[in-house]
């Protein structure tokens, strides 16, 4: 007994030995350094143009004037709406089609299955940058330039999502699907009502990744949109900042407006997001 308790004591004292405290402190300091740019961004967005040169983190007289000014003309609201609409639509499309294709490739036997799988997987090797010129040509011929559809169409399905969902559907036991088949459900209903609920963690991981990827997307929206009403938030922030030139308090306000929504969502859903990223990273 005494042996065990001294061992336990030793283990406990090992847990709080100086090395651990130093490591913990350094990690905390490192983490605070990581969010320093975000803190300064918020801090400056609450300062007047006269206070910008005062580099103290906590503004002397915080004011929301910049937000009123930046949000006042409605441009940011429009861009925010565009980004949300686009990211939500593309996410729904990916959840639907990537799951459907992943399920079909995992659970159906037919000639050509392996070929289709390889073909889709091989598109992972094609960089977006190579496709933008043909997409631009296609969009201008079909009148898709400067439209929501023009921004969205390249991302409606992804090989990454298909591959991720296929991996997870392979883990769904066939017995469940057979039982549903015996009950006379059609294949679409079996997929939607029986198989989909069994891979919810994968669906949420896919949804988080797709949403975040499209919310922060810059390259293609920059190319396909020229009218300001159709900008997404990142493209809008970029053009707004270039126009504001040296009015740093307004630039920081624009940047903060673009950052706040994702931070809020993260604070609400931290557990799911971290788990989703782990899942997608390890299986994908």
């Amino acid at each position, binding site marked *: 007994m005494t042996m065990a308790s001294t061992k336990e004591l030793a283990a406990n004292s090992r847990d709080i030995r100086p090395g651990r405290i130093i490591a913990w402190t350094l990690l905390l300091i490192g983490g605070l350094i990581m969010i320093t740019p975000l803190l300064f961004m918020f801090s400056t967005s609450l300062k007047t143009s006269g206070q910008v040169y005062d580099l103290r983190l906590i503004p002397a007289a915080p004011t929301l004037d910049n937000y009123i000014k930046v949000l006042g003309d409605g441009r940011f609201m429009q861009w925010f709406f565009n980004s949300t609409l686009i990211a939500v639509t593309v996410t729904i499309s990916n959840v639907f089609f990537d799951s459907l294709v992943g399920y079909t490739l995992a659970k159906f036997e037919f000639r050509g299955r392996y070929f289709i799988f390889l073909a889709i997987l091989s598109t992972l090797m094609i960089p977006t940058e190579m496709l933008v010129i043909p997409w631009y040509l296609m969009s201008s011929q079909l009148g898709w330039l400067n439209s929501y559809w023009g921004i969205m169409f390249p991302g409606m399905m992804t090989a990454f999502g298909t591959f991720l969902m296929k991996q997870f559907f392979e883990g769904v036991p066939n017995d469940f699907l057979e039982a549903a088949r015996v009950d006379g459900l059609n294949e679409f209903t079996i997929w939607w009502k029986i198989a989909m609920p069994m891979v919810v963690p994968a669906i949420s991981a896919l949804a988080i990744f797709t949403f975040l990827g499209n919310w922060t997307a810059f390259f293609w929206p920059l190319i396909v949109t020229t009218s300001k009403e159709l900008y997404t938030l990142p493209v809008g922030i970029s053009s707004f*900042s270039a126009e504001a030139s040296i009015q740093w308090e307004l630039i920081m306000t624009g940047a903060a407006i673009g950052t706040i929504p994702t931070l809020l969502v993260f604070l609400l859903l931290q557990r799911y997001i971290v788990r989703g990223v782990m899942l997608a990273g*390890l299986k994908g």
Partner: protein
Amino acid sequence: MASANALPQTGPVRFWDRLNISTKRVIWAWAFLAVPIIFYAGIRFYPTFQAFWLSLTNWDLLRPAQFIGFANYQKMFADPIFWKVFQNTFLYLIIGTPVSLVVSFVIAYYLDRVKLMHGFIRALYFLPFLTTAAAMGWVWRWFYQPVPIGVINGFLSSIGIAQQPFLRSVDQALFSILIPAIWAGLGFQIIIFMAGLRAIPNTFYEAAKIDGLGDWAILRKITIPLLKPTTVFLVVFSSIGFLRIFDQVYNMTTNDPGGPLNATKPLVLMIYQTAFSSYQMGYAAAQTVVLFTILLIVSLLQLYVLREKK
């Protein structure tokens, strides 16, 4: 999917009923794949071939494309700016990937053992990953401004170090852009490393402790070798990211994109300018083919490294 749902009802119902179960399932499978096949053919494969074809033409949006053989490639390989850009792109890769991997591994390794305020500290590192480069590029740009505006120079001068030009200097600009790029991706890499660390069964560590191995020996002989799949994934993922760097560079150098004097210009920015500022679509397509080739080599190297292990 209305059409897929309606499939069994359309046409002669008797015909559908006479099919055996496996045939029905094959029909269902192709019905499910119909829209995706059109998508992948029309929006992935056809444009890929078109990019290769365009790289052999002089298309400039105004006149129809004319076949000019390998003239675009000859022009590119003879262009000193292309080689400068090529060099920049590899600098982003060669510095960015190892630095971000080592830093994120060290943080993940220690963070994994931290219990006190674990979620909070993890969140601090992860938050920058959720930001958009278009917004943060401007924040960092402001950080790099000279005194009295810039935060970093303000800090340096307060501790008695001379002001640095950062983005205005041919020598420092590329590194000044790399730091935010590494910063933004660090959270993701830390999370993935931590997932990899947790996937290592505890029995390995227990066995090592019985053998009397110290922390350092355990790290070298057990953790790092068993973490290899995670590491390879992150090496490839971050390499591809740095090879395709664009958002940060574009937003931090808007008055002279890729400047000063092309010191920060990566391949994707050159592609963007060639295509959408000077409208030399054929020439830009040739540059995308080069990017494609580089990324293909990186991906094939990954397959090779992972295969060797088995």
